[in-house]
């Protein structure tokens, strides 16, 4: 079954890349290991958003809320209960997906912009609760210094842990992307009305997509806690949600790996431009405008288009 979708040609560079990522930590400075790990977490988050945004065509305006819910769930289980660690690992994504189910259940009834608006209000509601419920979440201060088991004690250990989880998630997401469900979802993105006419219950598929995407967002949230050992309300704030929205567009939201590239670029910009100037959002804004004017398909999407023109992708000839 795997042979069907992973052809050797595209598989080799991915494996090489993965091996490079595996051997990097001992040989590069600690700071870079940390930055790459941040890129991993952000990539997963952006790609989970893209499942509904780029592949599903839904205006998921407040995806960050589910990321935050995953992170908070994990953090609260670790700090407020005596439950074992793995319960937290499982609970983070599951709670995020449940919240996704609840939010999505209301949202899929609405069209486009109203969908986005309702989601912003529901997401903001979650943010407001986390922000104000001092006794549970420590409100504005957040929770810091969350204890991790010894297996995840060093930065390199958490790096590897995050990398492996990311790899598993990517394979899962790719399978879904290429599955009948994924194809149907993309058909819904292109033309929901026609989809209904060929017998697809659009809302139910959209809801399923939201639940799956929010599950992965929850995984990203858990990984964030593993890396940073803290949670704070900004994780749930809408500004972050818009930022990941941008990452998807930056990388190319109709592609599979594009958002990952977008996330990496954004994190790199924030980190390295941030060293020279505190006005990095200004630069992000300028880049975004350039993108809108010159690369509306995103960076990755642009390269794929180029490849198609030269006819070098075997993707098209296979069928």
């Amino acid at each position, binding site marked *: 079954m795997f042979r069907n979708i992973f052809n050797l040609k595209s598989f080799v560079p991915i494996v090489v890349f993965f091996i490079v990522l595996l051997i990097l930590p001992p040989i590069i400075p600690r700071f870079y290991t940390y930055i790459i790990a941040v890129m991993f977490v952000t990539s997963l988050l952006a790609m989970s958003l893209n499942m509904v945004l780029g592949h599903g065509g839904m205006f998921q305006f407040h995806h960050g809320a589910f990321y935050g819910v995953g992170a908070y769930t994990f953090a609260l289980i670790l700090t407020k209960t005596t439950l074992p660690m793995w319960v937290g690992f499982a609970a983070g994504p599951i709670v995020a997906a449940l919240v996704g189910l609840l939010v999505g259940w*209301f949202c899929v*009834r*609405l069209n486009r*912009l*109203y969908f986005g*608006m*309702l989601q*912003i*209000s*529901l997401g*903001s*509601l979650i943010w*407001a*609760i986390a*922000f*104000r*419920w*001092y006794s549970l979440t420590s409100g504005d201060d957040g929770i810091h210094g969350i204890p991790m088991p010894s297996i995840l004690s060093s930065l390199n250990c958490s790096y590897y842990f995050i990398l492996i989880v990311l790899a598993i998630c990517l394979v899962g997401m790719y399978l879904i992307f290429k599955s009948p469900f994924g194809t149907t979802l993309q058909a819904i993105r292109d033309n929901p009305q026609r989809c209904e006419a060929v017998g697809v219950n659009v809302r139910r598929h959209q809801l399923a997509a939201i639940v799956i995407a929010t599950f992965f967002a929850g995984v990203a949230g858990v990984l964030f806690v593993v890396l940073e050992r803290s949670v704070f309300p900004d994780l749930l*704030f*809408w*500004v972050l949600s*818009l930022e990941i929205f*941008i990452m998807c*567009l930056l990388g190319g939201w109709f592609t599979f790996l594009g958002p990952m590239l977008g996330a990496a670029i954004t994190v790199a910009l924030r980190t390295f431009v941030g060293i020279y100037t*505190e*006005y990095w*959002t*200004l630069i*992000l*804004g*300028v880049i*975004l*405008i350039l993108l*809108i*004017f010159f690369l*509306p398909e995103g960076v990755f999407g642009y390269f794929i288009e180029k490849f198609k023109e030269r006819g070098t992708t075997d993707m098209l000839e296979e069928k």
Partner: protein
Amino acid sequence: MDIGQAFTFAALGSQFLVGLSRAMILFVVCSGMSFVLGVLRVPNIAHGSLYMIGAFSAYSIFTLFGQSSTGFWLALFLAPLVVALVSLIAERALFCHLYEREHLMLLLFTFALMLILGDLVKLIWGAEYRSIMAPPFLRGSISIFGSPFPRYNLFLLIIGPIVAIGLWLFTNKTKIGKISRAAAVDREMVGAVGINVSWVFAGAFVIGCYLAGLGGALVAPTVSVTIGMDHDIIIEAFLIVTIGGLGNMWGTLVGSLIFGLTQSFGVLFWPQFAIVFPYVAVVVILIWRPTGMLKSVW
């Protein structure tokens, strides 16, 4: 706080007025957003940044005139014009080239604008807290329902309806207003009868942003002017416009009232979670009426 005391008639009454004056500020800002949304069909995410620029400009003008009463009135008059100018430049230089593009791109452009304007404000005015004093006769409080009520808030209660009536007169009684209303409903038709739609859009955008600036200037004496005030208002504005019915001016007014009042009564009932109440109200309204309370112009 003693619960029994909290729910006295006086407390309810004064909270009502507080909410009402908050609603007026929200209405001034949101009506601008709603206007842009109605004509251009784009939720302007940079609207909050323009509101912030309005507040900062008001501060600068106020300081320039030695923090006098004249300074205050001039600030109230000039700051929105500064904002209108900024928006006109952004619209003519960049935004107007995108009208033919996908809707999402327009939305993203306004987000990019928000990022840029936010940092520009930080560059120009810095990160400190600023404040503006209202003229002496608007300072202090008067007693209403036996509890003190700031005079400036009364001033806001007068300004809000004036803006509402002014906007209504503009859209219904002037030619430009009528054209922009027609453009909101059917832009092809407006283009077909020989009106330059691009300039209609520019006009609508600038007027909407002017109102954001006016809101910023009006709010300046009641809050500390600082970076980050854009983030606070923009989501509220988004939601108000949505629950009112996209692009519907009266819907925006109703939405502002709901937002302002649920917030101020929330403070009375459950101070810790006061900020939750408006969001709950929005959720309830959108589930009850998915496309807002009044008819959307879309």
